[in-house]
């Protein structure tokens, strides 16, 4: 299955991107593992996804991206738990919006932090003792950890830019550049005339 854009993560960040891109006329797929707690309100988490679906977005509810495929400097596909390895979801552009630790956008053990879908580069302090400040209300260093991008917002993997992979929302490290929806849509509209 082929889309213009695949968004991985159905929280605020992923939904906002999906909504804007679908309105602009793009063929969009969003992988939403469960409903998002970040989307507050009683019915909102469910009705938002239903509204996206009505707008023509392919919503994979309760599904999880288990592997992103990178070929050379480009992301080429995503495999999900439910659809299985014989269905590679393809797209021109991918957006990682899987959030930080709670939503498992970032995984960690005692000494490492990693991004499990594309294996994107993650910034974190090599010294484990510096991850958290014992002063509860202080600025917590781990909240700055996250996926790294180049100046154009391309996500880095193995130190190289993946030129069609972007990140949105909490998954970004402090100082990295978020997916620029406005200029992306502008470019798209220019391209299709």
């Amino acid at each position: 299955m082929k889309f213009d854009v695949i968004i991985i993560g159905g929280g605020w960040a992923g939904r906002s991107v999906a909504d804007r891109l679908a309105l602009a006329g793009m063929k969009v797929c969003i992988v939403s593992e469960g409903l998002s707690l970040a989307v507050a309100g009683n019915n909102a988490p469910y009705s938002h996804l239903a509204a996206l679906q009505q707008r023509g977005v392919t919503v994979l509810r309760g599904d999880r991206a288990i592997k992103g495929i990178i070929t050379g400097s480009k992301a080429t596909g995503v495999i999900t738990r439910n659809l299985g390895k014989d269905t590679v979801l393809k797209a021109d552009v991918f957006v990682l919006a899987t959030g930080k630790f709670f939503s498992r956008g970032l995984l960690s053990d005692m000494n490492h932090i990693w991004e499990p879908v594309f294996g994107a580069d993650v910034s974190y302090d090599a010294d484990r003792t510096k991850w958290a400040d014992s002063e509860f209300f202080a600025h917590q260093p781990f909240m700055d950890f996250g996926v790294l991008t180049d100046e154009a917002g391309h996500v880095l993997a193995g130190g190289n830019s993946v030129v069609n992979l972007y990140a949105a929302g909490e998954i970004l490290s402090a100082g990295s550049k978020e997916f620029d929806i406005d200029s992306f849509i502008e470019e798209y509209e220019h391209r299709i005339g």
Partner: protein
Amino acid sequence: MSTGSVNLEQCLKCNLCTLVCPMMEVNPDYPGPKKAGPDGERYRLKDPAFFDYALKYCLNCKRCEVACPSDVHIGDMIQSARIKYGSQAKKKGLRGLRDWTLASTDLVGTVSSPVAPLVNGVLGTRPVKAVMDAVLAVDKHRTFPKYSRQKFVSWFRKQDQSAFDRFVTYFHGCYVNYNYPDLGKDFVRLMNAAGYGVHLLNKEKCCGVALMSNGFADKARKQGTVNLDSMRKAVSAGEQVLTTSSTCTFTMRDEYPDVLGLDNSEIRDSLMLATKWLYTKLSAGEIHLNFRKDFKMKVVYHTACHMQKMGWQIYSIALLQMIPGLDLTVLDQNCCGIAGTFGFKKENYGYSQAIGSKLFADVEDSGADIVATDCETCKWQIEMSTGKTVLNPVEILAKAVEF
């Protein structure tokens, strides 16, 4: 061995599952997925006496699991608890007989098929419905699916498949075999048109979903073992096992390991709905079907709950969208309320119809000629409650293809 309780500690008590539970909305006696699942499990592990008999209201629709942000196996936990602790509540007397009859799809089908016109006629009459309602507590509003005089397997045995050099194996399920062979016939015609011959499993038993929900887990496990043995043979011969029922598929792929503790790892990836197989092969250009040019149909697609749990509606939808002349609308996912044998029971009929009301209204408002869905019990429920004809996407495809 049940894996139901493994991840109860992942539950954050956020209640998103409660929000999407269709039973919770209509029945205040049901504690809801959070309380019945991870909360209750904590108590049950301490003392089985904490088992709450209101868990019988769980439809096992798995909408809670689709909604859970922490991937807690809420539905599995409830289903496992019913099997583990609920057996003492096994109903005696006539209601027990009713549950056993509703669950024994294979046996009742085998007995009914040879005398199908008689059974269909008798089950459809008002006095019989009234007696079944009063004595067996099978709700009188229900229409029983009609039994077919010729079983699907009897028809299939007369079909020559020897001209093909590649094959798929078909798990037809009870509904196709005893009630609705036309769907199976359409499946065989489509596979043949795509250049594939069809084999049946060495031995096929009911998938066991009705046995599990009616408290006969041991029997379900036995039948599951027979099915898995046969599927291993088919898969090791290089054939994929295709189905036309979303619930049978879901049961054998997910409930076998998660609830019954049966290992299906060797065959799980090779067991799939025909719509997934057809879409994948058609879109890759590996098979070809000739579509009729004069085909016109306005269809609404209803995503069955177990279909949503597997996430495979996208294949059925994409397959329907490939058909020239088919105008498709996808309905918002809502439960139809029947949940297999649940809705046939007198004590559940009211809940069943209340849960389905949103879907029925959507179907009525859609103005479609045909409702498409991959689940046969959704079909019975929607046909009874809306008067619209409901077809499996495989049947619609067969109508649109030039043979």
